[in-house]
């Protein structure tokens, strides 16, 4: 089984980098192969909204940079992890830059899911989605927005299962590990 971890943290964010290591350790402990992407160290252009990945080079972004590799790794994985400092309730610009470039993985055509219009899947299988946000302290509003966002992404990226949770600054390593284990269990990776 394979997991892709998209790390949307900024340089020097020790909590987030600790969470990243814990996620990798926990996945490795159950025999998963982990493909990490430290997004801040990668040249990724922002999505320009041209829809070229749908109507010009179907399934591949017209911008030839690292986001193409990320899209390929994501669709070939069994679990995609979005790791980010919770930014106004949402994702950091580093993570969002990569996520915006994933629309090549779905079709331009529409389908109704639970009464709502979404884009049809392009592939037969999609990875499960785990969103992990890092917050400096308890912040229910930001946590609620973040959890909703991950849930909405899971619908649009056709994830068969998803989970979202936050890690708080100041939590001990044991507590962080416990949090991550619970999230992985919720998304069906660990018991």
């Amino acid at each position: 089984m394979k997991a892709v971890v998209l790390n949307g943290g900024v340089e020097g964010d020790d909590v987030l980098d600790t969470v990243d290591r814990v996620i990798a350790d926990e996945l490795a402990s159950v025999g998963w192969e982990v493909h990490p992407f430290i997004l801040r160290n990668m040249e990724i252009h922002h999505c320009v909204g041209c829809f070229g990945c749908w109507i010009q080079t179907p399934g591949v972004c017209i911008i030839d940079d690292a986001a193409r590799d990320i899209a390929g790794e994501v669709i070939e994985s069994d679990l995609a992890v979005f790791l980010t400092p919770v930014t106004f309730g949402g994702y950091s610009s580093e993570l969002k830059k990569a996520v915006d470039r994933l629309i090549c993985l779905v079709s331009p055509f529409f389908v109704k899911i639970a009464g709502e219009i979404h884009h049809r899947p392009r592939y037969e299988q999609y990875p499960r989605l785990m969103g992990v946000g890092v917050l400096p302290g308890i912040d229910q509003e930001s946590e609620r927005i973040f959890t909703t966002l991950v849930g909405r992404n899971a619908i649009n990226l056709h994830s068969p299962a998803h989970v979202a949770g936050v890690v708080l600054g100041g939590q001990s390593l044991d507590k962080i590990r416990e949090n991550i284990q619970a999230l992985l269990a919720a998304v069906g990776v660990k018991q």
Partner: protein
Amino acid sequence: MNSDKRFLLLVGSAKRPRSTSESLGTYLLERLRERGFEADTLLIHRSFGSDELREALLEVIDQADILVLAFPLYVDSLPSLLVRIMELMAARRRERKESKKQRLLAIVNCGFPEAHHNDTAIAICRRFAKEAGFEWAGGLALGGGEFINGRPLSEMGKKVRNVTRSLDLTAEALAQSKAASPEAMVLMAKPLVPGWMYTRIGGFMWKRRAKKHGVKKRLYDRPYQR
């Protein structure tokens, strides 16, 4: 000219030559100009070419009394470039000792016919306003933005009457230092065309556009298939 009332429209779409975000924001901007506001538009993707341009953008934002973020929904939230600007704005405002009262309004449009897909993006903008010290002036959400496709609203007549009415009401509210009204939000969220028609026309349009690029038969390709 009411020069102490500066209105700045930040367009978060990189689409050329014109975007639906710009159409919506420009209509509002024109209504505020009529009310004596000094009003300008900045396209954020053109303000990221250099550190100087980015710094100039942040300085212009500091001068605005009313800031409007008009953007397309990207994967359930804001385009990454707009998030980046907001990160920089929030950091700058945290460092600043004194700042004048500024208001923030968001106008979001998505390619799905239902406007409520934009709810999370509006929640993010509202939260940003709180963290960066803006007074929240509300969020307007539009579904089926492709229907407008960057055309000026003033040339679309009755087809967009709910949208223009919503923006007229919002201009009036902003001019009176009020937030966008619930009525304006409801009007903006009204479907421009029935959902079934939008998706059918949408499907036809994607095929036509793919044909233009000679890839109609490849629309369902799975280039990353294992």
